[in-house]
């Protein structure tokens, strides 16, 4: 299973994502943002970090990188694309996902473990989980407050595009459990085709008991399982 880990100047979770892919048996390759061509990859991963220092707006400059043309083409053809944190921001900037990620409501960077509820397990990124399962996964971002206009929000809610929501330990969305003010507690969502997932929390940091949680593994095993199913 070949996966591309696209790196931009300022990406800093690229290595973590690479290791996570390896851990579930995939064969990752780094693709520098000036390289072209994603044919032959079974999935494309956009890592977290501060591409171009988050200057202008998180993801706004990376979105103009040469490789993004290929990412857009790849996604449009139905190829699986996963963007985490800055990767999610880039996907929104590139128009592959609706809405935008703005400054956290507390106006401060937020770094801690949060609880996420899996809204659907019938996506290629969540099939290893059960619907309603609560995951413990770290966040680390300053601009993770998900916003969209009312019409868009209604559309993505009705279309079941929300995949992860911030919740408390009882599994309920509450203001206290929402670390950044995201509307509807949205932590991750897929596009209408279900082949592009963006999420602010870092599943690649929740892959080992030693580091505090293994709840992130499911995102990667789901993807691998779906790809294997496609291949067979």
């Amino acid at each position: 299973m070949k996966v591309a880990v696209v790196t931009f100047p300022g990406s800093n979770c690229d290595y973590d994502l690479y290791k996570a892919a390896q851990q579930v048996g995939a064969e990752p390759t780094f693709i520098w943002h000036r390289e072209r061509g994603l044919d032959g990859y079974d999935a494309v991963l956009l890592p977290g970090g501060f591409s171009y220092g988050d200057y202008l707006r998180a993801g706004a400059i990376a979105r103009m990188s040469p490789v993004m043309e290929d990412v857009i083409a790849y996604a449009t053809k139905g190829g699986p694309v996963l963007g985490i944190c800055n990767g999610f921001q880039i996907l929104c900037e590139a128009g592959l996902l609706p809405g935008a990620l703005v400054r956290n409501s507390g106006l401060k960077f937020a770094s801690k473990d949060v609880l996420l509820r899996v809204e659907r397990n019938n996506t290629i990124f969540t099939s290893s989980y059960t619907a309603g399962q609560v995951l413990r996964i770290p966040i680390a971002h300053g601009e993770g407050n998900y916003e969209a206009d009312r019409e868009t929000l209604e559309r993505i809610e009705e279309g079941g595009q929300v995949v992860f929501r911030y919740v408390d330990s009882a599994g309920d969305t509450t203001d206290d459990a929402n670390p950044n003010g995201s509307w509807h507690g949205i932590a991750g969502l897929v596009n209408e085709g279900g082949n592009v997932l963006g999420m602010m929390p870092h599943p690649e940091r929740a892959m080992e008991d030693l580091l505090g949680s293994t709840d992130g593994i499911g995102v990667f095993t789901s993807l691998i399982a779906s790809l294997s199913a496609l291949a067979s």
Partner: protein
Amino acid sequence: MAITVSTVDENPTDTAVAPRPGDPEITAELVADHGLSEDEYERIKTMMGRVPTYTELGVFSAMWSEHCGYKNSRRLLRLLPTEAPWVIQGPGENAGVIDVGDGYALAFKIESHNHPSAVEPYQGAATGVGGILRDIFTMGARPVAILDSLRFGDLTSGRVRYLFGGVVSGVGDYGNCMGIPNIGGEVVFDRGYEGNPIVNAMCLGLMKKEELITASASGEGNSLMTVGARTGRDGIHGATFASDELSEDADEASRPRVQVGDPFTEKLLLEASLELIASGAISGIQDMGAAGITSSASEMAGRGGSGVEIDMALVPVRESGMTPYEILLSESQERMLVVAEKGKESEVQRILEKWELEAEVIGHVTSDGRFRVMEGGVTVADIPALPLTEGCPTYERDGVESPEVIALRARNLSEYLLPRGNMTQTFLKLLGSPNIASKQWVYHQYDTTVRTATVVRPGGSSGVIRIRGTNRAVAATTDCNGRFVYLEPRQGAMIAMAEAARNLVCVGALPTAITNNLNFGNPLKPHIYHQFREAVLGMSDACTAFETPVTGGNVSFYNETDGKAIYPTPVIGMVGVIEDVSKITPSTFQAEGDDIVLLGENTDEMGGSEYLYVTARLVAGAPPQVTLLAERALQQSVLAMIGGRHLKSAHDCSQGGLACTLAECALGEGEEPRGASVSLSDDLPPVALLFAESQGRILVSCAPAETERVLAIAGEHGVAAKTIGTVGAVGGSFQISLPQGSINCPSTAMAEVFFGAIPAIMDAPATSGA
């Protein structure tokens, strides 16, 4: 420290340099403005065999500043032990390096950015982090962790809240953008730091042992290249600024001396540097930190025993019309100087280009021992390199203890040992003191989990980073209680060392080496020099006793505002090695019914305690006494307990005393605050029993089946130990009963105070006038 102080050049050669048109005339006043004494100026003239040019004066001013020249500290620092079989690189390089096993080496260092942070907290702190990161990756190591040791005045002041908030954002934004986890540190609030905050940042980097590279310029004809950001007019004379006292109105005037950080460029520079080192195209690399090109080029020449010739017209600049003086002394950030092997300059450029950065040849290595600076081929400075970097006059002064401190130390504290009011309320008041309360408000702004290696995050005893591909991990902590050092400098420094070592053994790490950040007032004042000397002596003894040599560090003098010095604050950054990651031990209670065992003995030493500060606004009395051999035995006993997997948790007992330590163990990170039931029977006043900060104590918990073994191991090491209570249920009640009186409150109420204190101050809507 292996430093040879060469004095005046025996044979000053005649190297006349014509003054540059437009340069000011060298007058006594100009010399004084450059922070040089008359004696020092005479020495320069003798060494040069002539009057220096304006450019040369600027160069000497920077290199012979306290910040670069260590002129008031060097002689005493030589007393510190620096060697051990595991030390690969001791003091004198960008960072110290130790062997941590399995083929890996750890580079680490701490550095201050106090003055810039006092003037512009966000940029001051951010560039402090940027500087220490460059010190690590210029050794060939990849930075893997940051710690920050911060001190401010009382949070009741609006100005202090501004400084605190700005510094935390600055530290956070820089490290977050670089993708390097913050794993710990400390934050202290005390009126002793009101006008002069302390911002010390420490960085750890890992490398394979063979990847080590040093900062020396050798090989005649090799090229000197600037790499990274362009040079601008920012931070000119930062090194000299750092070697001066602050004054009330210094803020506005000094702001242009503060550099501006760009972590994005630094991230590219980091990746490019590591690639450069791996490529073999370069033979030396050094950060352009304090005193910019001047210090990096001259120090590389000094270390390499060679000379350099550089041309300012070749340096990429941000604005036109910069003079050689300005270019030489600019402290623009995110720049490095590398020595490229002859003929490999284009390879260096190719690598930098990939990372969208510039690299330009600005000169070459010579063999004539000169630090020669040109401007478009015309010589503007020509100075013997070794005397410039190593010939800075060093002083050993007379120190006298301040009578005020002697009186404070002798103060009888017996009246404060009497209980005042409700004991539970006093306890909660202490838990809500910003010094003791949770620092989540701080470290929740720091990325702590990036790089997927953080085993113990901030909030634990020490931060722990695993070494991927091995079963090992490294641990690090920063510690110092400035009140103790103020009241009795030698004891205070030993306490800082002891506390750091206890914090390491609590996670299961063997203390291995230290870096230090010596923050003091003006050393020309006899009572400040006394503090400095005593602290160095105390540290030296403790380093020897704990077998933790010093591998480098930083001295920050002149931490004074309007003549008032900070508490002497020798921050210890200690690192340790863990051989088996599966044995890493948390600091918080794990399970209901576990036994709580106190190692060490309670005393009634209340001097310098947080209790006195919170209840009486008092910093007085003798600090608790520390016995180095007893500390060593305690460290070894805890390592033996953890090695045998007998413990569930271990926590150093320090600020706020036994009561607050028990609370911290019970509360953890607040997700599952536990109760505890503790009974103390020592024949001591209740206040002392609960809140004294006696040394040599660690609080551990274990399954009841292990208790006997834990007590036996303590006994074998000659460490006092007794079971003092039991861990309670999540949400249960927290009780400490004493021969007279008790503390009793729900763990949830305790959590509210402990986690709510700092947010309540910092996130409250701004009040007018604050």
